[in-house]
Structures are given as C-alpha cells and as structure tokens.
C-alpha cells in the first residue's frame, strides 16, 4: 500500500470528499474482510464487521492520527470489531462437525496439503489474542513492526505472542491429527 496515497485520501476525506473515502474502502476491503473472516470464520459475520469497520473509520476519521499508517489503524479497528463480535455471540466452535475426522496422513503433511477450512478450524481453537497475531502476520502480511503498531504493543511482546501462537496452532493441528507430531 502506498502510505502517501493513503494520507492524501484521508486528508481529502476530511474535506468531505466521499470519493476519497470510497477509494480507501476499495483499497482495504479485501484485507479487512479477510482479517474478519479469519477471526470469525463466518462470511456473513465477516461482511457485517467489514461494513462496521469502515463506518467506524468514517465516523472517527477526525480522530485518526496521521503519524500512524492508515492501514495499521484500520486493521486495529477490524480486529477490535471482530473480537467484539465474538464476545457478542458467545460461541466458539473448536472444530466444525463437517471437518474430516480422518485428516490427511503424516506423509501428506509434508506437502502442506491442509485445506483452508482445516486451518480455519484450528485457528478457532486459539484465543482471540493469538489468532489476531496469526491473522496479522500470515494473512495480512504484516511485519513485526506493523503488528506492534496495530496492536499497540512493544515489538518484543508481539514476537513472543506470535511464537506462542504458532506453537499452539501447530499443537491444535497435531491434536486433530492434521500435523505430524
């Protein structure tokens, strides 16, 4: 993403330019939707959250601090809204019933032949904090520095959380026979 472009678009939004905001929506709809989807699993919920994220962003555009990158701000809203949604619905399904109970054998795992649904099911067994760092790093391609900015945590803390999250994700996959112990 071009940060200069973002800053210019945000500035134009502040002047009442709807087209500029629409350009930001177009630019960030995909990562925001995918982040919400990975956090929530349900496409309808992800869609609702994505809409809410951009409406909140619009609503609070005047509060946006341009010393931060726009995407880190919008990603933070996306994660917070997703977590709020999860808290609201009070349900977490560790592994859906339609997941294959006899997952791929160890030899298949060498080729990382894990379906998106299987990975998603394992993701849902993580705590929100752990899932958030996995989403940021692996699905939004954030650097450690980006993640620290999004989560407003020291980089060292982010790295430590990411390493733990990966370990737990690996354990979750192993537990369901999806990753070689």
């Amino acid at each position, binding site marked *: 993403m071009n940060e200069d472009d973002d800053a210019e678009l945000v500035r134009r939004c*502040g*002047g009442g330019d*709807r087209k500029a*905001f629409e350009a930001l929506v177009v630019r960030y709809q995909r990562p925001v*939707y995918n982040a919400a989807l990975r956090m929530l699993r349900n496409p309808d919920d992800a869609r609702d959250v994505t809409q809410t994220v951009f409406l909140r962003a619009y609503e609070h555009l005047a509060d946006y601090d341009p010393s931060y990158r726009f995407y880190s701000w919008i990603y933070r809203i996306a994660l917070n809204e997703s977590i709020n949604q999860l808290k609201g619905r009070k349900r977490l399904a560790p592994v859906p019933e339609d997941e294959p109970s006899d997952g791929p054998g160890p030899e298949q795992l060498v080729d990382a032949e894990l379906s998106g649904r299987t990975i998603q099911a394992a993701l849902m067994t993580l705590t929100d904090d752990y899932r958030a760092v996995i989403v940021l790093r692996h699905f939004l391609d954030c650097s*450690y520095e980006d993640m620290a900015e999004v989560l407003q945590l020291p980089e060292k803390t982010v790295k430590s959380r*990411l390493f733990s999250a990966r370990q737990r994700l*690996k354990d979750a996959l192993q537990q369901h026979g999806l990753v070689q112990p």
Partner: protein
Amino acid sequence: MIDERIEELVNADVDGRLPEGSRAELNRHLLANPEVRALHRDLQRLQQALESVRPEPVPADLVTGIMDRIPARAVRPGALSTARSWRYAFALAASLAVAAVALRLGSLDEDVDGAAAVGTMAAGEQANSAATIDRPGLSASVRLRQAGASLLVDLDVASQSSVDVVASYGGHTVGLSARGDMAGQRQTLELPADGAGPVVVRFASQGRVIEEISLQAPGQP
C-alpha cells in the same frame, strides 16, 4: 527446552526476518541440536500450510453497501472539533431523556408512536423525495419512499449529540432518538401512507427543534 534466543532466530528465519549476520549462528544450532531442527521444520510446515490458504474474494456489493450507509455529506474536521465540545457539555447536562419528553409532550404537541425501525431499503424501490442537512454538529440525509401502504423515511444521521427525529404525516407521528456521536447508521421510520400534504421531519435537541424539513409524499401535488 529451546533457548529463547534460538527460538527467536528460528521464528525470524521462518518469517524471512533473520538479522544479517545471524545465519551462521542459526546454522550452528540447527546442526548441533535436533530439537532446534524439529522446531525449524515444524514452523516451516506451518508457514507453508498457512500460505496455502488463499484470500477469500470479498462480496461483490461490499463497497456499495458501505458507501450507501455513509452520510451524504462528510462532517468536516473543524465541525467535529466544535461538536465534540458540545458532546461533553451535553453529556454533563444529561439531557436526552428530558429533551425527548419535552419534545414529545410539549413542543410538537403530538402523540409519538415511538421508533419504528423497519430495516433497510429493498432493491428496486425509488426515493421519492430527499433532503440533506449540514449544520455544525449535525449532518443528515433523509429520503422518503413508498412501500405498499406505508411511507418509509430513511435516515442517515451523523450527529455529535443526541438528537430526536420525529416524522409526521396525515395525523400520524413516529420518532426515534439518535444517540450522539453516531454516523452512517441508517434507520427507517414508517408512516401510514393514507394521509395528505407533505411529510414533515423535525430534528430536535434538548427539546428544541433545530431543523425542520418537508418532503413531498408520493402522489401529492
């Protein structure tokens, strides 16, 4: 048990962020310690598995759905700043309930049926009449349309303080309270379409009407 420093090197390598000059150190640990090799291999597999998950396409009408809910006119930063100070003043006054009662029992002298949120606009329906409001602390777009035996008043309100909205038509009145600091939240008021004359929509704060607009009802001259 793997040392924290080694674990960091392994993770950094998997992320492609191994610091320059640390490759030799990591290689030494990989050669010397099978546990480190196992961790490195596991994390690489995990990385590959996660990379195999493709981004999902976004719903086709997502952008439209978002932009439809954005008020027609943006609240400019200056207006926001001014209005934000209003918000604090109004919060101190704790006036919403009093304002609503005053509005409903006094200023308008009409019975209020209460909020009648009826959902979002169905595809294919046309706005029959529309207006926008843009004043310090309050931006709103109002659209009137007919749906069967009802008139629907679609509201997009961006306000920095709590605002009561009351729509009247043919002796019927419905209303809702828009909380402060809201934007892009569409709500719809429903009125029976059996009246005559214009639909009058009033915005009030603290019991005082601050804006009044008239919309042409369908089929009315």
